[in-house]
């Protein structure tokens, strides 16, 4: 069942939240042994919350737009009293004493959190293999990775353990696993969803967003979590967009741009799927426009300076002093070193070192400073293109899901998985990946829709059309 159907059923009294939760918990029990999407499952608490929702419905109350809908949270979202580990040894067992804004909004809307999902440690990775607690498998083929870093949230939805989940996207960490697992994944406009309670990786790029099996479910979930939050200074003043009411408005008259930079390097079958998707949009009345965005080719390099630079600072606080892992040593400084040496995995260490170097005296201008200028250039390039098109269509990933272990030894190869998704984060723009059939090895593939800031309504309209046409 979709989230839309569950919520409608629970609110109208034709479906019990308790049953919806039981269905989800049964699926988790049956499937998660093979997939390992979850790091924590809250069965008893979820049952109690569901029972309370059913009581409210029985007494004539409306628990909200997500009444009784089971949802999974990426393990970098703080949930009061629950462990938030970021799949890292350094935060293993750390219980957040407060709720993230998105969690507050979910619970106020009647959603039922059933557990926390696996991820690449601190959201750094593209395969969920960088988890300190073991990898997640792709439900479509368990020899393959689910993508990352939000691999657990994508796999949980793809295997129908939950209808919806939340992930975070810093350079593609929602869209890439959505594409690999064959689900919808949305990276909203920067500032549309509050980051309060999202454990930071790269603050200027991080954004929380939905996973779902249908475009409508992502629209429903995004409407609930979006909107201004005074606890996040980078939160936009604009209200949550009205997505569901425009979902079926179609693409008649929309100008959709195709640029080589968002297709080049993609596998032959993925490139073919994009052509078919473009045809589908044209058939529904959209106008295709050829554009060029050569600046995007510098996105990956700029990202791998900026994101690690911010991460090197954001992750400094895991020093063994206040919470999380502490490895004792002779003095405070030695304790800091011992704790961080043991607590962080290789990829996290690699990025902390990269970022520390990029910010160092004497190197700042050449690395961090230059990357910032590239970022500005990319924003200007998008601005130029969005003068003549409403949306862009391209690949989400260059390949379908790769095999577990295939890229672990080659970080550069792994980084290239995000080449099409990173520019949107640099610009702070929204983008989504919508499943569009299969490509190599019969594995699912998504196509990516990109738009300017706050263009979510148009993106969802186009995604809805592609969902209907995915069988082409």
């Amino acid at each position, binding site marked *: 069942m979709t989230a839309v159907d569950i919520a409608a059923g629970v609110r109208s009294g034709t479906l019990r939240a308790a049953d919806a939760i039981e269905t989800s918990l049964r699926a988790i029990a049956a499937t998660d042994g093979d997939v390992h999407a979850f790091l924590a499952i809250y069965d008893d608490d979820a049952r109690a919350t569901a029972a309370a929702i059913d009581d409210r419905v029985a007494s004539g109350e409306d628990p909200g737009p997500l009444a009784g809908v089971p949802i999974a949270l990426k393990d970098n979202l*703080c949930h009061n009293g629950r462990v938030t580990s970021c799949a890292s040894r350094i935060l293993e067992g750390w219980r957040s*004493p407060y709720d993230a804004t998105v969690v507050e909004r979910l619970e106020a809307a009647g959603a039922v959190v059933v557990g926390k999902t696996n991820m690449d440690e601190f959201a750094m990775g593209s395969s969920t293999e960088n988890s300190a607690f073991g990898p997640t498998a792709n439900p479509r083929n368990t020899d393959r990775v689910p993508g990352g870093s939000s691999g657990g949230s994508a796999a949980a939805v793809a295997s129908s353990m939950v209808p919806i989940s939340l992930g975070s996207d810093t350079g593609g960490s929602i869209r890439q696993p959505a594409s690999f697992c064959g689900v919808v994944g949305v990276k909203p406009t920067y500032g549309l969803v509050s980051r309060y309670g999202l454990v930071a990786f790269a603050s200027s790029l991080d954004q929380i967003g939905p996973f779902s099996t249908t475009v409508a479910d992502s629209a429903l979930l995004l409407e609930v979590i979006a909107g201004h939050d005074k606890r996040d200074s*980078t939160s936009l003043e604009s209200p949550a967009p009205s997505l569901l009411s425009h979902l079926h408005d179609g693409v008649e008259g929309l100008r959709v741009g195709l640029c080589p930079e968002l297709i080049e390097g993609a596998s032959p079958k993925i490139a073919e799927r994009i052509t078919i998707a473009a045809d589908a949009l044209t058939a529904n009345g959209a106008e295709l426009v050829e554009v060029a965005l050569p600046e995007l080719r510098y996105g990956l390099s700029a990202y791998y300076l900026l994101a690690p630079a911010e991460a090197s600072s954001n992750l400094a606080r895991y020093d063994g002093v206040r919470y999380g892992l502490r490895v004792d040593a002779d003095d405070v400084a030695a304790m*800091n070193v011992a704790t961080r040496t043991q607590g962080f995995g290789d990829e996290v260490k690699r990025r902390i070192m990269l970022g520390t170097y990029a910010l*160092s005296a004497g190197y700042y201008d050449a690395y961090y400073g230059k990357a910032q200028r590239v970022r500005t250039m990319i924003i200007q390039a998008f601005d130029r293109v969005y003068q003549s098109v409403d949306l862009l269509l391209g690949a989400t990933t260059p390949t379908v899901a790769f095999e577990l272990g295939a890229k672990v030894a080659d970080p550069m190869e792994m980084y290239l998985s995000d080449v099409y998704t990173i520019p949107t984060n640099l610009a702070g723009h929204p983008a989504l990946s919508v499943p569009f059939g299969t490509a190599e090895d019969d594995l699912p593939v998504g196509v990516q829709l990109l738009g300017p800031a706050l263009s979510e309504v148009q993106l969802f309209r186009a995604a809805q059309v592609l969902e209907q046409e995915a069988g082409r």
Partner: protein
Amino acid sequence: MSALGGTWEMVVGLEVHTELKTATKLFCGCANAFGGEPNTNVCPVCLGLPGSLPVLNEAAVELAIRIGLALHCEVLPSTFARKNYFYPDQPKDYQISQYDQPINAEGYLDLPDGTRVRIERAHMEEDTGKTTHLGGSGRIHGADESIVDYNRAGVPLVEIVSGPDIRSAEQARLYAAELRAILIASGASDGRMEEGSMRVDANVSVRQGPDAPFGTRCEIKNLNSLRSVLRAIDHEALRQVTLLEAGGTVTQETRHWDEDAGRTHTLRSKEEATDYRYFPEPDLVPLAPSSTQIDSIRAALPPMPAERRASIRSLLGDDGAASSLEQITSVVDQGLDDFVVAAVDAGVPVSLALARVANELAGLIADGGEVEVVAMTTLLKMEEAGELSATQSKAVLAELVAAGGDPRSIAKAKGFEQMDEGALDAVLDAVIAENPSEWERYVDGDDKLAGFFTGKVMAATRGQADGKAVNAGLRSRRG
């Protein structure tokens, strides 16, 4: 020859941190308050818990702008930056500060001696927690145990950086005192150095005369009082001169002032200095106070000490003795100038008002007392009119500050009635009759004996006689 010997001259710049008097911390809703059980005045934001985010306190911004305007700075669009370094009292292991775009820049402060000290910048940042190292070496490296209290973490600070324009330890002391008075007057800070709400670091170097290039500087930390500022800078400059004259070189380093030992010692060398890896704080948006906002803050800014000193000096006219100038500075520093101005407006001579406020009232208030301006004015007028002697006036003031009330009622209750002329005449005549030889000498022109007779009269009247009336009586009897 300079105080340092030969042509040596010291060059000093001060970095002053002041805590702002806001109700809450800089980036969260925790109270900006001291004391209390350790780690109780904290929340996810000021503890830097994973996922927490800072939100800027607008009241702190206003106080920072007040400081900037009081120091004649330009108030600029600014940004926050992260200063990265590991230390246990730093909850995030970075400090949110301002770096290349501070909120205030390029102002100045005029010292009472007329020297203009440039203010390079006055920027905002958050305070850290407090670490205590126990056992072992008692310092971070080699202590048995270190404990941290984060109640102070996130308290708003402004750091005021002067230009290298100070040329003596006394000038440095004057600068710190004047800055403190400005901070208090602007309402931005309580300026309490002993409690750490105002902290001074000094950059000190020496050179051979005013045209020589700057020498290598040392930064002196832990200056917790104006006296420390004076002593530490003198000591440090002399240390550098002694070193250079012996053929040595000064090493750029941070030094700690040991108040008890009266000397500085190395804290860390330049090689050990941290690379702070400043970069723009991505969790906060740029700050751009509107000109309307700046203008309204400027308009609401009370007069600053220099202006207040000048206005009292102008009341004093040309006969401003050196002692009066000192009294003016002291009265203004302590914010007691309203008492002087009000009394003078009511017809009390400036010298009398200054003397009573600087020498008597200041001490009583420093001990925790209060008095209303109007009551003080009444008292000074009574004294001026001869209704109270100086001794009586001081006694009434002490009572006024201690218990409040009305000066007339207090004077009456103490039996400080004005002596009528007849009673004074009788006492005078009796005193003259009892001391005939002294009287003869006084009549012959030995004016010093006036004091002798006044003392006798005061003793006989238990201080109730008006000194001026006694003098007049003595003069008229001498003929």
